[in-house]
């Protein structure tokens, strides 16, 4: 087996503000190989973006990360500025949720892509970089790329802009792409096109992809492995098949019950189903007590009893249908009861 492209061990991210330090991500561990897609799912505020940004050491002010992050053989948490600059945009690239605000309003698309190239290959002339940008825009399916390269971000439609952003992220052929809700701002049909494009480019470049989404349907149509996050911790981890067919965490089961896969969904008229279908409001790690963060919303907590409230469950190995696969869930229940009971 080749070395993993991404290895995260016991990642904790904490925020310091107003004299208080609080963890917002705790004890996260994942391993991701080239050519594979790991989907990170969870409700808004569960720490997906922070996790993605921690991997690139792009945390907002006041946040700090502990643990271990290795990207393409590089220790990210101990890397100095120069090493980080070399890694960012070259070993690991990011597609941000909001393509409009992730682009400089004062630069045309070509200048963005040229910048991405020249930051890592200073010897490439601006001209050559722009020529390369045209090729790249063509590759991601933007019509009339020679013309598009001179357009400014506000002159693109959302879908086209997202394609351009993908071109920008992939121009240096990163080993790892972190795509933070790459389709959330888009129409359902465009969503499917962008996901298909990402998958196609991933195969072509053999890169690993961390696909962040709060939409379980998106995950179903694009992931190989899935990490379900709840309140900054991993609730469940496993292959797409295990997660969909035999979820071991009540939260995952709830999501699963609420969301048909994207391909199925399109057949039933593109209706959008969201994670909100689980009653109750998500808890942040900050407000969580010593017990399971999901306990206030968990229909099964009563079956387990006090333990859910006083002791946080650790991820434990669950049955898997994959050969050599890993399936983990952080729940005190060893087995989930039949689906209809979960849904109640």
């Amino acid at each position, binding site marked *: 087996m080749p070395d993993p492209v991404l290895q995260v061990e016991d990642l904790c991210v904490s925020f310091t503000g107003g004299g208080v330090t609080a963890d917002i991500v705790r004890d996260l561990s994942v391993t991701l190989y080239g050519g594979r897609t790991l989907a990170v799912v969870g409700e808004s505020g569960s720490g997906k973006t922070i996790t993605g940004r921690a991997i*690139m050491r*792009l945390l*907002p002010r006041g946040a700090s990360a502990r643990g271990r992050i290795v990207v393409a053989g590089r220790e990210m948490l101990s890397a100095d*500025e120069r090493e980080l*600059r*070399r*890694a*960012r*945009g*070259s070993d690991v*690239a*990011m597609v*941000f949720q*909001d393509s409009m*605000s*992730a*682009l*400089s*309003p*004062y*630069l*045309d698309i070509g200048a963005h892509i040229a*910048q*991405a190239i020249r*930051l*890592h290959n200073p010897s490439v002339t601006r001209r050559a970089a722009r020529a390369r940008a045209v090729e790249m825009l063509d590759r991601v399916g933007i019509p009339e790329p020679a013309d598009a390269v001179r357009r*400014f971000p*506000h002159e693109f439609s959302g879908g086209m802009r997202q394609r351009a952003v993908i071109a*920008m992220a992939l121009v240096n052929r990163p080993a790892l792409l972190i795509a933070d809700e790459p389709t959330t701002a888009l129409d359902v049909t465009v969503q499917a096109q962008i996901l298909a494009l990402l998958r196609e480019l991933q195969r072509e470049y053999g890169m690993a992809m961390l696909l962040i989404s709060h939409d379980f349907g998106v995950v179903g149509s694009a992931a190989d492995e899935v990490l379900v996050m709840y309140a900054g911790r991993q609730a469940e981890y496993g292959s797409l098949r295990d997660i969909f067919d035999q979820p071991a965490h009540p939260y995952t089961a709830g999501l699963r019950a609420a969301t048909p896969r994207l391909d199925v969904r399109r057949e039933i008229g593109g209706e959008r189903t969201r994670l909100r279908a689980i009653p109750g409001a998500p808890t942040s790690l900050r407000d969580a007590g010593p017990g399971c963060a999901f306990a206030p919303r968990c229909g099964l907590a009563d079956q387990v009893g006090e333990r859910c409230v006083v002791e946080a469950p650790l991820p434990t190995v669950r049955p898997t249908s994959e050969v050599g696969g890993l399936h983990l869930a952080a729940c005190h229940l060893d087995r989930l009861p039949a689906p209809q009971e979960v849904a109640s």
Partner: protein
Amino acid sequence: MIVYVARRMVTAVFMLLSIAFVTICLFFGASKDPARAMCGKPCPPETRAKVSAYMQTDQSAVWQYVEFVKGLFVGRTYGTGAQQVHCPAPCFGYSFPNRSDVTTLIAERLPVTLSLALGAAILCLVVGIGLGALSAIRKGGIVDRFSTGFAMFGLSVPTFLVGLLVLQVFGFMLNALPYSGFVSFSESPADWAWHLIGPWMVLSFILAAGYVRVTRTQLLNELSADHLVAMTARGASNRQVNRHAVRGVMVPVAAMFALDVTALLGGSVIAEKVFSLHGLGDLLLSGVNESDLSIVVGVTLFSAFLIIVGNLVADLLMPLLDPRIRRA
């Protein structure tokens, strides 16, 4: 880009011509004939008619307008024979009470007003952007709190009040600053600046408030802007990212400054009055007091000219900061 420049220039010329037309119609059409003041007392009708003809105030406003515009390019001659006076191009009219063409009067006063306005502009930009940037970088800190108060005060207090305050405190009470007079730059740069510090402070104080606010807000936006995070994610260094942040701040600041050229000149009139400086504003006021229509019209139009040129320069600089405009 060429289209943009051409369009701006044509607009500027067109605006100047229309302002001239409106001003001349307004003043020459609706004012008392200035010839009456010049004719002396007693003033028999035939003398007055002669004076009117000599001063060319007997003509219609439209004729005045045409002559004025013509005078700007080829000069203008009043009267004939021994009485003849010539006002060379660019002629902004002739002031009979002062026995001087308005252009010369303006040229005498212009250094004062320009010194005042340019100095105040520089001070205001330095203070405004500096304070705004410091407030954003140390948000909630002492500089931030001070400059928020400063901005509130500056935005709400009228110029003349600040002027009188500065005059009172620094000029009379502390005897620290000269409270009137102007020394030309070529004579002594140090004295020139020394005499202008008071009015500069007053003028820039009023205008700086806006720049503090815009710079602070904009820089705060930029400091957490996704597109700068994205730039870091592409592998850019802090320095490269900061350069982009600065551009994001400069665009709205420049746009604001273009609008403030007018306020700067308007404020100068008041500051000149308060600090007894003999600049364009003072010239204009004396023209009004003495019913000297040529001065009023000439100075008004010259000021309009300054403002429009100032705006034009700002407009032409904008595309350098914001490339989106280049494509327009």
